[in-house]
């Protein structure tokens, strides 16, 4: 019998079975999450399955956020917010309110998720939790509503694809460039139903805020979970966070077996990776930035669960310090959480960006949800640190969204057109990669 992948190990532990790829198991879930869009439907399911004696299986591990329509952009959204608040109050769930931040960000910041955990969220980017070594996966509201009641769900144990990057990444190249390249290489549906593991020297060298980017966008290749093997850096990161709910005793021993069986392996040499940009209207349309240099843009968007962390915003501020945005562009900055916003404020990053001409907005999903906070009009072109560029994703069906790293967005802000970040003084990016060694957690 061969060894196990990270996904098989976690699902074996949580289901009390051998859990080999292809098996169907019922597994205990550690954390359950819903937000203002998917929550109300999950509440309906929960009430339906539990009836009159409704009780959450684990209220202290049931987390509700208000992040997608934050602040409310209409009466129905406001009513949904009240539904979240009412449910949390009635059943004792943990609840975050408008401005507290994006679900995935606050769960990691506040120590709800530890390596080896099984986390389900009614949001497709719940793969994010793989950045700290947890099996995080997105589910629908019916799944979540039943998990609220039973603390478990059915899973098909996935096959695993492994991406390995040897060596170091060049200046100007970040985790975002890696994941855009991976998605471009395997395609938008290339890892459908699969777990994905990220490994190799270049990935072990990434700080946690960058590993999270890889896991976050795993869903953009169809992946069910995207895992980076946990290490001591994860433990330090979680210890430096805002909360100690579950991260107090972090076990970093989880690792795939040497003889684990993979569905496919992809290997890269870090030094050969260029900054990437995904062209409209699919994340798989990744090309080296040089292929789209000079594309004129109207709006820059720094934020989202992919790249709205403090380090991302600080990198943009470092590039724009003492400069002005190109007069033909506007920049919308949406911190991923209140803690990120506070750090941006206290460190002077907010002031730098405001002076450069950017707009700061309430922590949350911002225009990535396509209904508020800077949506795009007909013909508008946006360069975003976001994860999706589907038609109409950030507003008009006639608008275009390009996806890139914060460094590429920052460099492009100076010139009003897509710009190779390597063309801008790279020393400005130096602090980005060491940030969480200094105890600056995302």
């Amino acid at each position, binding site marked *: 019998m061969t060894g196990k992948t990270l996904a098989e190990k976690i699902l074996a532990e949580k289901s009390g079975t051998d859990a080999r790829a292809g098996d169907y198991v019922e597994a205990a879930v550690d954390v359950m999450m819903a937000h203002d869009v998917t929550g109300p439907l999950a509440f309906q399911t929960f009430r339906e399955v539990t009836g009159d004696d409704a009780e959450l299986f684990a209220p202290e591990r049931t987390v509700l956020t208000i992040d997608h329509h934050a602040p409310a952009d*209409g009466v129905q959204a406001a009513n949904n917010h009240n539904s979240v608040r009412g449910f949390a109050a009635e059943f004792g769930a943990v609840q975050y309110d408008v401005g507290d931040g994006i679900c995935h960000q606050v769960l990691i910041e506040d120590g709800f998720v530890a390596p080896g955990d099984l986390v389900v969220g009614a949001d497709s980017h719940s793969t994010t939790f793989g950045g700290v070594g947890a099996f995080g996966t997105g589910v629908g509201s019916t799944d979540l509503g039943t998990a609220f009641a039973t603390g478990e769900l059915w899973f098909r144990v996935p096959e695993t694809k492994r991406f390995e990057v040897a060596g170091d990444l060049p200046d100007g190249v970040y985790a975002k460039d890696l994941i855009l390249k991976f998605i471009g290489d395997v395609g938008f549906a290339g890892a459908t139903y699969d777990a994905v593991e990220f490994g190799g020297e270049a990935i072990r060298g990434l700080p946690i805020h960058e590993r999270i980017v890889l896991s976050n966008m795993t869903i953009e290749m169809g992946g069910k979970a995207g895992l980076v093997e946990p290490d001591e850096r994860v433990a330090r990161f979680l210890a430096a966070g805002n909360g100690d709910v579950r991260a107090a005793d972090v076990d970093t021993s989880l690792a795939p077996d040497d003889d684990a069986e993979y569905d496919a392996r992809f290997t890269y040499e870090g030094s050969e990776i260029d900054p990437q940009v995904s062209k409209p209207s699919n994340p798989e349309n990744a090309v080296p930035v040089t292929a789209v240099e000079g594309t004129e843009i109207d709006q820059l968007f720094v934020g989202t669960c992919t790249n709205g962390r403090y380090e991302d915003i600080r990198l943009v501020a470092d590039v724009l310090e003492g400069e002005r945005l190109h007069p033909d562009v506007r920049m919308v900055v949406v911190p991923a959480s209140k803690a990120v916003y506070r750090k941006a404020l206290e460190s002077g990053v907010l002031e730098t960006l405001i002076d450069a001409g950017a707009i700061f907005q309430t922590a949350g999903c911002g225009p990535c949800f396509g209904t508020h906070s800077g949506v795009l009009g007909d013909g508008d072109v946006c360069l975003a640190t976001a994860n999706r560029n589907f038609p109409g994703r950030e507003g008009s069906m006639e608008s275009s969204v390009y996806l890139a790293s914060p460094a590429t967005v920052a460099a492009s802000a100076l010139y009003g057109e897509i710009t190779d970040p390597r063309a801008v003084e790279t020393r400005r990016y130096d602090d980005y990669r060491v940030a969480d060694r200094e105890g600056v957690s995302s």
Partner: protein
Amino acid sequence: MTDPSTPARAWVFGDDVDTDQIIPSRFIVSSDPDDLGQHPFNDLRPEFSESVERGEFVVGGHNFGSGSSREHAPLSLVGAGVAGVVARSFARIFFRNAINLGLAVLICPDADRIADGDEISVHLDDGTVVNHTADETYDAEPLPPFLQDLVERGGLVPYTKSKLSED
């Protein structure tokens, strides 16, 4: 749920139809299937939400339902009375959500042989799709036993209810 074995019109879509296109974000402030059922494909193909009739089918290419975990996407099709979705392949969460809701979904490699407006029927018992217009029958992938059991119990809600009552 409408019986998918009754022949009805197929609405054919291409590859990578994502959940934003199935139900645009601005409509998912509601969780009510009847409300949501007014708006499927509102931007991608407005005539769908205007004239789809109960019992009709959605046919997709590869990777149907990619993107968001929003269950509002399959729920909007349930609300619009769609009897089933046939596609060459599905995105994972959409497929799972549809099964949990009891919406018939079948992976059918020959889905591209179905033309817009063809009359089709879907047979879950033997895993086939019949194209009555072209007079052809296509094999689809049968659901794995675990999921067949889940569907036979009526979806995840009744399944969970019965489990909770056993405890």
